[in-house]
């Protein structure tokens, strides 16, 4: 490998590491034994929320304000990319006592 190419690679890597904090993150939320954890999560617009259903029954992640309604089959994951800032309460349509909150910053 030429030293010139190595410099380019190092530069690219350095740039992507530096750029990383500004890039969208994926936030993991787990549904297990009919409990959503964490019950309150913080995120930014552009971040992806990924819910994992560890139960043997199906769940949903359904926003009170109608922004999202993600179906989560048993032992499957589902995701949603946040588009708007604000505090969003969501719940499972099949088990309405499962509730949680997303705090979404701009």
């Amino acid at each position, binding site marked *: 490998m030429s030293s010139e190419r190595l410099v380019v690679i190092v530069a690219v890597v350095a740039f992507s590491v530096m750029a990383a904090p500004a890039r969208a993150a994926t936030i993991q939320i787990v549904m297990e*034994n*009919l409990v959503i954890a964490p019950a309150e999560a913080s995120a930014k617009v552009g971040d992806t929320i990924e819910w994992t259903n560890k*139960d*043997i*029954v*199906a769940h949903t992640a359904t926003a009170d304000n109608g922004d999202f309604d993600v179906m989560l089959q*048993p032992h499957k994951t589902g995701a949603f990319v946040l588009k708007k800032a604000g505090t969003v309460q969501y719940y499972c*349509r*099949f*088990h*309405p*006592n*499962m509730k949680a909150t997303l705090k979404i910053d701009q």
Partner: protein
Amino acid sequence: MLVRLSAAIAAMMFLNGAALAQGAKPTDPQIAHIAYTAGVIDIAAAKQALTKASNKDVKAFAEDMVRDHEAVNKQALDLVKKLNVTPQDNDTSKALTKQAADKRAELDKLSGAAFDKAYVANEVAYHKQVNSALETQLIPSSNNAELKSLLQTGLKIFQGHQQHAEHVAAELK
């Protein structure tokens, strides 16, 4: 009514341990049968509600019961197959089935809001009864670790159903 009441009391006594205590603890094949039967009963109740209920929250609740109890019973069947256990019919399963058949006949005579209320009230009572039996009898008596674990998972799900039913019942008032 007296007969029905005494049947219901008998069923509760069975579940509360009176009958089980006589013959000592239920065996794993009996526990599997009781748990599966309890699910079948709630699916039958929900299917009746899906044809008779008028309130949309009651219908949605009934759909939830079919979806969840079918999922749990599928796990139960997979487990007994894996463990090579044949679920064994027993007095508790028989009493539960009899109690449920009587209840369905009673509910069948109702319609509209009266049906909705009676169905949901029974769902609250039924889940309480089954959850209490799971907690105090079936889970402590089960020997196989996988069976115990499935019953514990079931209990969490059915406690959720009880809360959901209580919520729907409160909304109907």
